[in-house]
């Protein structure tokens, strides 16, 4: 399958485009806050940041409604926000507060909002696969054209459960979309060192149509998502997207506090931070080039997003800690 490459998004209104840009910006700025806050010890757990991959979650989720499902990974803040998760309760969750979306029980690796179709970040690599297949099965039985999307990493593509998911979803023509975000690293190992062949090719023997895209190119990713979601909604079965991207930050924030050595060149990282690689800067440039935003507008948007993030942080900081007894809620009953 080929991506229908228009290289434009002219089916989208300017307002819509700005909204999408804003969402990417919001993810970026939330993550940047978490990056600095973690070094100050502002919240208890570790965070895996989505910086550099924003185009993928935002473009895919633009095709989804709250009735659709997504399952995510340990690197899940971006998916949460893109799918419409509330930033305040996400931030409060990461700060371990009672007002967190999981009441402080889950933290960064488990931000979820089932009411909005967000089955959650997941601490088990490959763990979202079963959830997404199950939701896709439910969707297919509901017959209401709902779809299910599983976001997973290049490292996760080596878990056997992926093969099982591909076989079952193709067999049952489930409305499932596999989105492999190939950010080139599995923790501290370049994924090519632990991966045979190309990931996207793994879907082919199952008869699953595949799309390989530049995941840092918002337009390309948006169009691929449109195609995949359309197929799923039309009961044409699963689609597999491999989106090439780059993990700009460490596997986990502040990792050199415990790692004994480096594992990649700063040159390599810098290359991906540049204007022609970073997905946010690229999308910004596109909007500039098409006169959809200008410097003034950008500044305004930045301010707006800054204040959303700021508000979420103050919401988190000022929220109460969980009630001690809540540790014993939500058990089996």
């Amino acid at each position, binding site marked *: 399958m080929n991506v229908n490459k228009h290289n434009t998004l002219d089916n989208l209104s300017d307002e819509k485009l700005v909204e999408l840009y804003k969402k990417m910006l919001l993810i970026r700025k939330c993550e940047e806050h978490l990056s600095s806050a973690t070094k100050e010890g502002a919240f208890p757990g570790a965070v895996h940041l989505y910086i550099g991959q924003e185009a993928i979650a935002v473009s895919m989720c633009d095709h989804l409604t709250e009735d659709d499902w997504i399952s995510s990974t340990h690197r899940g803040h971006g998916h949460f926000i893109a799918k419409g998760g509330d930033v305040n309760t996400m931030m409060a969750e990461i700060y371990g507060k009672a007002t967190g979306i999981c009441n402080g029980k889950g933290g960064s690796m488990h931000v979820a909002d089932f009411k909005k179709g967000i089955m959650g970040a997941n601490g088990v690599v490959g*763990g979202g696969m079963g959830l997404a297949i199950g939701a896709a*099965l439910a969707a297919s039985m509901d017959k209401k054209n709902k779809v299910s999307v599983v976001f997973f990493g290049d490292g996760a593509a080596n878990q056997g459960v992926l093969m099982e998911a591909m076989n079952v979803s193709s067999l*049952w023509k489930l409305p499932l979309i596999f989105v492999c975000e190939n950010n080139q690293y599995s923790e501290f190992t370049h994924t090519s060192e632990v991966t045979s062949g190309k990931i996207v090719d793994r879907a082919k023997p199952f008869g699953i149509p595949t799309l390989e895209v530049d995941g840092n190119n918002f337009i390309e990713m948006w169009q691929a998502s449109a195609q995949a979601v359309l197929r799923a909604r039309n009961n044409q079965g699963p689609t597999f997207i491999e989106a090439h991207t780059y993990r700009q930050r460490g596997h986990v924030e502040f990792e050199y506090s415990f790692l004994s050595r480096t594992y990649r060149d700063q040159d390599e990282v810098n290359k991906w931070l540049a204007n022609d690689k970073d997905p946010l800067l690229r999308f910004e440039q596109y909007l500039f080039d098409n006169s959809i935003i200008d410097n003034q507008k950008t500044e305004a948007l930045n301010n707006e997003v800054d204040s959303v993030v700021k508000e979420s942080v103050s919401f988190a900081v000022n929220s109460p800690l969980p009630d001690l007894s809540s540790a014993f809620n939500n058990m089996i009953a």
Partner: protein
Amino acid sequence: MSRMRMMPAINSALIEEMDRDKKVILYGEDAGISLLGQTTGLQERFGKDRVRDTPICENIMTGMAVGAAAAGYRPICHLLYGNFIYTGFDSIANQAAKLKYMTGGQITLPIVYMAVIGGGRSAAAQHSDTPYPALMNLGGIKVVVPSSARSAKGLLKAAIRDDNPVFYLTAGSSGKPEEVPDDDFILPIGKAEILREGNDITIVAIGPMVLKAVEASLVLEKIGIHAEVIDLLSLLPIDEETIINSVKKTGRLVIVDEARDVCSAASHIAAIAADKAFNSLKSPVKRVTVDNLAIPYSPILEDQVIPNVENIVNTVRELI
């Protein structure tokens, strides 16, 4: 009432519940034809949409149940033999057991995982395990182990209606025909049953061991020992009250469990007694269980390692 064996009783519970609630779905390897008889005829009755044959892929099977349950269905995931629970253990332990708690109770997970357990069929090491101890320790999973056609029906209906993941584990052989209620017969999860009353000693037995405990109590009766036999039925939640009350009455406790001994249900029940019925205990709490080994193939060896009536009788006699 109808006379039936365990597998048909399970089958009738499945039919009744699937008739009652369209959200109940079932899948498993060969679920249509049914290797072991629990699901016979369901596919013909409810269609291939609600009763699905899956590929052999326990990892996705167990995980899929969690997703489908979170999305509003009540999946029954049929795993054939207890040993294949291990094959699909990841999603059981890391997702099913934790997702409700770790998301602050956003969802319920009405899942039934079913499999047959235990030895006695020369099926050897990889088809004879009694894996409930591992499940009982996961924290977010209920476990029930019926011992008869009647309890098989009543507990399965309860498990399907329960809003938590429930492991439903039965013996592999279908047992003797017995009376099973026809109508909407539910046995509450978490409630043990006293099968025989007695004042001298309490014998708690689980699943396939219950019949043996009853037989042992008949032998003991002949020599004047009146054992109270408890059919535990639910392993988690466990009916501490029934056990403790019985031990308070008898002062003595033997637990019969086909699981391996270390960290078994038997260990846990002994621990409960040593804590909460300590002052009533007149003698050591004994466990009749399986050693640190796999179930062997040859029947003569299998008989050596799986608790039998004689083991139970002898253990009781050590105490009285």
